[in-house]
């Protein structure tokens, strides 16, 4: 059975059918989407273990003298990504089916199925052409979804668009350079050819376009500006996809192409056994996470805050991967998978809040937990995972990343990562308090209630996944053992049981730790309910220094701490961070626009100067070509 072809073609077909016939009917669209993702999931599941499986398509395109053959090759890395993408999209579809009742919902199914079929091209492409096609094919529908066809999202979505087009162009340039140097478009072959004549002077420059393309996609430091904006303007039920999956394609690209080159010493020079370039890129990951963490402190929009959190987590992943050690790769991939799960869950809960309240401003929310307990519990477990606290999955992968950093004795890097990791605690607590706790707003007291069961399904699944991976990391790491073997992970780092976390500086039995934690919690619970009785009081019966709030016209809105949460901190640090990169991209955009306007004016004006100039330039080029 032709798996990949089926999924790609089916995706395009469903997209067309929905676009032609069911554009107005969201329910049918989403049911088709769920069926499609579920079907693809099952198809993909059967491919586990068949790593030699491939699908080749004949084509009539010639590039030079070479006849292009499109091949989709099953591989472990792509498979694990694909299975997660379709699994997550399936549950996201269930959520969206419920969400489609809301007036904030848009029919994004045709575009989304296109994205899914594009992801297959990226993940299983054997050659660069297909990879690039998938890459562009992924970028464009996302732009239309993020934009939502609304003017107010124009400037926000432009950040996404401009940077990702830049990334796409860079990728094309990179592919051209690779082709020029190796005369082949096959990824694996080109890597081995490049490695065989690595002494060439072009080596470093050859990789730069790829760095740009992949770092833009994964929203790493200098290019992170698009992530918060795209998240905030995308429809609420699409944000999980951006954070959970979209930005992971950058990481996939790095694992696919850059990691094999760097780890084999493509660029000469090492520092403590790590290629120097990779070492600096590792620090880039650290900078990414620190900058995103600090920027998240002052964010008031909950989706933007969580987008910054995603950027910070991408920072950890990049750090781990660019250590170019097997343990680092293990930690990086594990964290990628964990981040996919918990961040999708977090964004789904945010979408649930948005579904009921219609606002993403944290200062306009508060006390939602009292009305939406399941959503709250899901969010809580999600942020515990995101903060890397023990019984959840975020901890397990962070443990491996720390072990990988310590293995290479990069102690300063570990300290810096601690900063970002602790900082995560600050902004996540802020989100927890401002959205879910504190005083409930009067306007939400009656209107907000728990989301329907259909929308709770992904939350329940997510909670179970997060906790079970946290306690049994082997659930994810054990199936991946063939891949780790292929990158040469030493035997001591390979899991022997479901719950033993490997590490260079020691192991950890998560199951035992979880038992101890459960024991302590049970003990305290018994103590709490054995001793004296407790009774409930309303929320506004609160310590107010002896004043009755009603006397002063103080309602729940004003008895909530929502603005300037980390003001002392912001006062000292934020001006420094706000200036640096956002300003750069703003000026960049500003001057680019001016340049465009200048060219535009040449043709707009009545005089013929423009035409003469263009003709002149063309003539110069032609003659120049002859001369050179």
């Amino acid at each position: 059975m032709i798996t990949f072809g089926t999924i790609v073609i089916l995706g395009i077909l469903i997209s067309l059918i929905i676009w032609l016939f069911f554009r107005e009917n969201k329910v049918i669209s989403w049911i088709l989407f769920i069926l499609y993702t579920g079907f693809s999931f099952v198809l993909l599941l059967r491919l586990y273990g068949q790593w030699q499986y491939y699908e080749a398509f004949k084509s009539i395109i010639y590039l030079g003298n070479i006849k292009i053959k499109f091949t989709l090759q099953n591989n472990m890395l792509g498979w694990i990504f694909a299975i997660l993408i379709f699994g997550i999209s399936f549950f996201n579809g269930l959520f969206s089916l419920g969400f489609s009742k809301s007036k904030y919902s848009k029919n994004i199914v045709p575009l989304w199925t296109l994205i899914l079929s594009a992801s297959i091209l990226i993940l299983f492409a054997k050659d660069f052409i297909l990879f690039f096609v998938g890459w562009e094919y992924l970028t464009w529908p996302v732009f239309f979804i993020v934009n939502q066809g609304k003017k107010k999202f124009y400037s926000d979505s432009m950040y996404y668009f401009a940077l990702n087009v830049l990334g796409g162009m860079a990728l094309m340039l990179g592919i051209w350079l690779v082709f020029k140097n190796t005369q082949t478009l096959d990824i694996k072959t080109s890597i081995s050819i490049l490695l065989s004549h690595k002494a060439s002077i072009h080596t470093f420059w050859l990789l730069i376009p790829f760095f740009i393309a992949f770092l833009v996609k994964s929203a790493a430091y200098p290019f992170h500006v698009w992530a918060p904006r795209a998240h905030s303007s995308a429809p609420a039920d699409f944000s999980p996809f951006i954070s959970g999956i979209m930005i992971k394609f950058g990481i996939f690209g790095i694992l696919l192409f850059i990691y094999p080159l760097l780890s084999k010493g493509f660029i000469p020079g090492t520092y403590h056994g790590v290629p120097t370039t990779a070492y600096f890129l590792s620090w880039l990951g650290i900078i990414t996470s620190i900058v995103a963490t600090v920027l998240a402190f002052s964010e008031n929009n909950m989706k933007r805050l969580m987008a910054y959190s995603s950027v910070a987590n991408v920072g950890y992943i990049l750090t781990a991967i660019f250590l170019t050690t097997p343990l680092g790769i293990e930690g990086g991939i594990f964290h990628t998978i964990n981040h996919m799960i918990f961040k999708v869950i977090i964004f789904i809960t945010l979408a649930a809040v948005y579904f009921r309240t219609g606002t993403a401003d944290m200062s306009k929310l508060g006390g939602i937990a009292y009305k939406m307990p399941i959503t709250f519990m899901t969010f809580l477990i999600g942020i515990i995972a995101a903060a890397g606290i023990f019984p959840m999955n975020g901890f397990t992968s962070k443990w491996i990343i720390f072990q990988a950093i310590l293995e290479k004795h990069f102690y300063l890097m570990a300290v810096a990562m601690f900063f970002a990791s602790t900082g995560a605690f600050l902004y996540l607590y802020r989100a927890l308090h401002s959205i879910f706790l504190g005083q409930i707003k009067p306007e939400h007291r009656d209107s907000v209630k728990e989301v329907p069961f259909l929308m709770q399904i992904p939350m329940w699944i997510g909670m179970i996944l997060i906790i079970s991976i946290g306690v049994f990391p082997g659930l994810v790491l054990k199936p991946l053992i063939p891949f780790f073997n292929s990158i040469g992970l030493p035997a001591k780092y390979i899991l022997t049981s479901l719950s033993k976390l490997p590490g260079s500086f020691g192991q950890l039995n998560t199951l035992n730790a979880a038992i101890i934690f459960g024991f302590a919690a049970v003990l305290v619970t018994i103590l709490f309910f054995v001793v004296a009785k407790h009774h409930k009081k309303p929320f506004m019966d609160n310590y107010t220094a002896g004043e009755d709030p009603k006397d002063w016209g103080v309602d729940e809105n004003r008895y909530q701490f929502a603005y300037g949460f980390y003001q002392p901190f912001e006062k000292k640090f934020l001006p420094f961070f706000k200036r640096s990169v956002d300003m750069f991209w703003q000026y960049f955009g500003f001057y680019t626009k001016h340049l465009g306007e200048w060219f535009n004016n040449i043709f707009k004006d009545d005089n013929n100067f423009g035409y003469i100039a263009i003709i002149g330039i063309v003539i110069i080029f032609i003659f120049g070509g002859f001369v050179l």
Partner: protein
Amino acid sequence: MIFLILLKAFLITLWVVFIGLLFLGIGRKITARIQKRYGPPFYQQFIDVIKLLAKESIWHHWIMILGAIMALGGLIATALHVPIAGILPYDSNGPIFLVLYLSAIGYLGMAMGVSASGNPNAPLGIGRALTLMLGYEIPFAAVLIIFMGLTKSSYFLQIAQSQAGGILHWNFIRYPLAFIGAEIAVQAMMAEKPFDQMIAPAEIASGPLVEWPGKFLGLGMIQMGVSVFIETAIITNLFLGPSHNILDFTLKQFGIYFIALCINAVMPRFKIENAAIYLWTIPLGLGLLQMLITFVL
């Protein structure tokens, strides 16, 4: 097997709570004596806790209860992973990252519980506490990483055992800069003066605890005792050599707590942002300097 682990865990929990509350009580006595007062009896903290547990409490939402349970449960679980003179409920050897991130669940539980009370003073205090936490975790992590690098292990037990062979091998003599840095960080961790912005009774009505009556406060006090125990136990394991028996270990712990108390009794309070900046300059500087001396020179 598992019952043995749980029994051991239960006994250690009792010991931890006992020592924690005893330390707090003795601490009150010592502070009183420094201030030329007679002071409460050393067992005052036990009386307080029992009274609070017997007192009627009010709650606003079950999240408050969940938070209180998470807070104490998380910290007790943390304490059960810190070796007490080598004693642990199971052979975990005291994994450092687990201790750091498991204690965080205690603080998160506390933060969540007080937020659910609906009083704006509580998140205000938590915000201060977290800003401070960002301050002290970094120098503390730096110090921890020095010893992890030296022993090539991320276990407290190995670090403690690596100092065997007399007082001259103890880390606080061999690595004095790291010791001073860690001491300052621990002062902030215990929220003793000059780092007690989060409590600030006159400013924000005892901050996070503003709406915690009766048994919530009782659990909070036990939690405070447990966290004092954990923090002193970490420093003891890191710097004060391997301990031969539990009494030896406890005396060392008390020594650490005594230093913190003496500083607490005579100090004023930092401003919020200045505390974080101070922690990022002096203790972190000391930690990094020690790192430089140890690994580079």
